[in-house]
Each structure stands twice: as C-alpha cells, then as structure tokens.
C-alpha cells in the first residue's frame, strides 16, 4: 500500500515561507492569490494486512517523528 502524509503548520503558526511565496507571486502580477501556506508531503510504501492496520501504523510514526504536533497538523491518505 502507498501512504501519503500531508503536514501543514497549524493555522495560528506564522508561515514566513508562505508569505515569501505570496510576495513573489504578487511581483509576477498574480494579485488574486492570497493566504498561501506551505506544507510538506511525505509518501511511503507500507506493508500491512489491511488499510486500518496501515493507517494505525502511519498515525503512530507521524506522531512520533514525521510531524511536530506543537506546531503542525497532519492528514493521512492510504491507497
């Protein structure tokens, strides 16, 4: 199975990278794009009996390493 973990900064955390991207787009004349937030995507193969087991495992590794829940939130997609 293939798992994708999407990690993004919590809404209340300032994202200067997102702001810098937004400023660059404004410089390119894209004035209708606002509130850019940059996150990250981590994908992996996982061996598991079923989707539930895979999800449980991915949740565990996300909490223990992939995301820092002090500043980030995440969502998991398994296919």
């Amino acid at each position: 199975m293939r798992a994708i973990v999407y990690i993004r900064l919590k809404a209340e955390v300032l994202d200067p990278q997102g702001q810098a991207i937004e400023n660059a787009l404004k410089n390119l004349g894209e004035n209708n794009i606002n509130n850019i937030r940059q996150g990250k995507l981590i994908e992996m193969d996982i061996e598991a009996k079923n989707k539930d087991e895979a999800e449980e495992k991915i949740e565990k590794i996300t909490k223990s390493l992939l995301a820092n829940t002090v500043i980030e939130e995440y969502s998991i997609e398994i296919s």
Partner: protein
Amino acid sequence: MNVTIIRFPGTNCDLDTANAVKKVLGIIPKIISCKDDKIPKSDLIIIPGGFSYGDYLRSGAIAAREPIMDDLELRGNQGVYIIGICNGFQILTERKLLPGSLLKNSSLKFISKNVELKINRNDTFFTSKYQTDEVVNIPIAHHDGNFFADQDTLNSIEDNNQVALRYLNPINGSLNNIAGLYNKNLNILGLMPHPERAVDIKTGTNDGSRIFESALNFYST
C-alpha cells in the same frame, strides 16, 4: 566536575564548545558520538550547535530520536544539568525536554550577529554569576530561532518563571522575545545564543563565559 559534549552528524560547534569549557573552567570535556551506547558519568552535558542531520525534516528532529537521547532524557530526569545551544536547543524541544518549538525566523533570514539579551533570573545553576535583568551581549547564528508555543504553554512558561533570557529587541519573531528557557526543574537550559563564542574579549565580548562559570561555581561551593 565532568563535562560531556554530544556530537551528532552535522554538529559543528563541538570544538568551540570544548575550547570554551577548557578556557573558562580549566576542564577538558569528553566529546562523545551520538552513536555511543551511553553517556559517561557527567555533571554537565552539552548539546552544541550545528546542523544535525542537515536540519532534515525539522531542525533537531532526527537527532532528538537517536537512541542516545533515551539516556540523555534519563539523566535529565535524574537532575543532571544539561545545556542545549542553538541546534542543541532545537533538539531538546523536539525531544520535548523543553516546551515549545523553534520556527523559521520571521524575516526568513539567517541571522548571525551579536545581540543584547536580558538575563531573566540569576538563581539557577546556569546564571548565578549574572545579575537579574542584566543586559549581556552574546552572538546568535541561526535560521530557525523563532520561539513558538501555544498560548497555554506560553502562559505556563511565564507563570513558572522558566524564561532564561530574552532578546532586548525583537529579532526573529520569538514570542515574548524568548531566547532561552529552562524546564520546570531548572536543570535543563536551551538557548539560541552561542555563549561558547563569547568567552574571550578578543572576539568582542566575553559575556558568555559566566554561564560556564556559574556551573563551576555551583560545584565548588
């Protein structure tokens, strides 16, 4: 007094830190690898600055999960004194030995300069040689030093008087201008400024040396 410095792949302030300990305390510290099984008997453990594991994933994230950090956490819980400098501070927050987290500087710039800092309290192992509210000059050199914690955590840090030092002027976006803080038991200190780079007046300031002197003071009195 036994001082141990832990080196991770990408650590680059280990020798500066060892030199500072030697110069200020007259003690030759042990530098150990993060791949060692155990931390030797230590009165003070220092995690120096650098870019452990290339800052991959998040600054300090990979180093914080090294097996040797289990031993560090155990020592910390036993009351052994620990300092994390710069990347060491990031590693300690990633390990949850200190609250909050260090985000990218709000300016998105790597900032390397001497800054003025205010010592918040002088009744700890690390600061007895300073005065409370004393302003000192110590260099910073970081990209991810913007201290963040949610409101409840920030309130608890302030209520428990866990702030070690603050930037005199806002510089990187840190909440409450926090530049360094303690755990609740005051035996673990994390700070973004580099005291090991401020131990000789020839480099412009020696205001960092008193952190090490304070530690020695504790053991010699």
